[in-house]
């Protein structure tokens, strides 16, 4: 069961079926998720499952765009918020998730698939090295009142 943060609020649960997972086990966990008033989606066991496999490259691309000076952080976030009807922009979301967590997930994808498209942006790597981790450290792409 892969819950989303914050768990009590987010409706989604990714149900991960491994190679040895029986249909009965998967079905039990699907039904259990409904008892918790969550919406289950069954996914096979690949690096990043579905949620992180799609979200993290998007966040990484937003960081690359900022890194290359394509647009300001505010523009990048506003474009994705208003243009794609996302509740928050990718850079703001990365700050909420934690930049160390984003980096670690990208490394799992990069290692797991051996594909350069998952390589973490150098800006993300240097921000994590500088302990700029997002909301929890008081600063990431934006600053937060501590």
């Amino acid at each position, binding site marked *: 069961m892969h819950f989303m943060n914050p768990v009590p609020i987010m409706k989604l649960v990714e149900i991960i079926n491994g190679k040895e997972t029986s249909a009965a086990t998967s079905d039990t966990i699907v039904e*259990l998720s409904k008892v918790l008033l969550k919406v289950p989606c069954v996914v096979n066991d690949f690096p990043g499952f579905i949620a992180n496999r799609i979200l993290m490259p998007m966040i990484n691309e937003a960081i690359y765009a900022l890194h290359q000076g394509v647009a300001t952080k505010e523009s990048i976030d506003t474009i994705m918020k208003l243009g794609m009807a996302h509740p928050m922009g990718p850079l703001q979301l990365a700050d909420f998730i934690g930049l160390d967590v984003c980096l670690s997930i990208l490394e799992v994808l990069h290692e797991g698939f051996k594909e350069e498209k998952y390589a973490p942006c150098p800006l993300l790597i240097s921000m994590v090295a500088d302990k700029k981790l997002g909301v929890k450290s008081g600063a990431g792409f934006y600053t937060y009142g501590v």
Partner: protein
Amino acid sequence: MSTIKNVTVVGAGTMGNGIAQVFATHAFHVTLLDTNSAQLEKALATIQKNLDRLVTKETITAAQKETALAHLTTSTTLATAVSNADLVV
């Protein structure tokens, strides 16, 4: 779902305390496990605070909050924590 009653949640960080709260709110017997007892205390305080907020917002009643907390125990030993578990998250 009658077969699953006891749920053990491994790790009392950001995800673990949220997962424990959701199961406990839905009347599962939850054992929250962490090797660090300070982390367990912090998690319980967070769950209490979150449930208090839900009571204030009238999403749940004070009685439901107490029931949820009564369904929650903690452990620092993996073997003990999972000995009676129907499900480990």
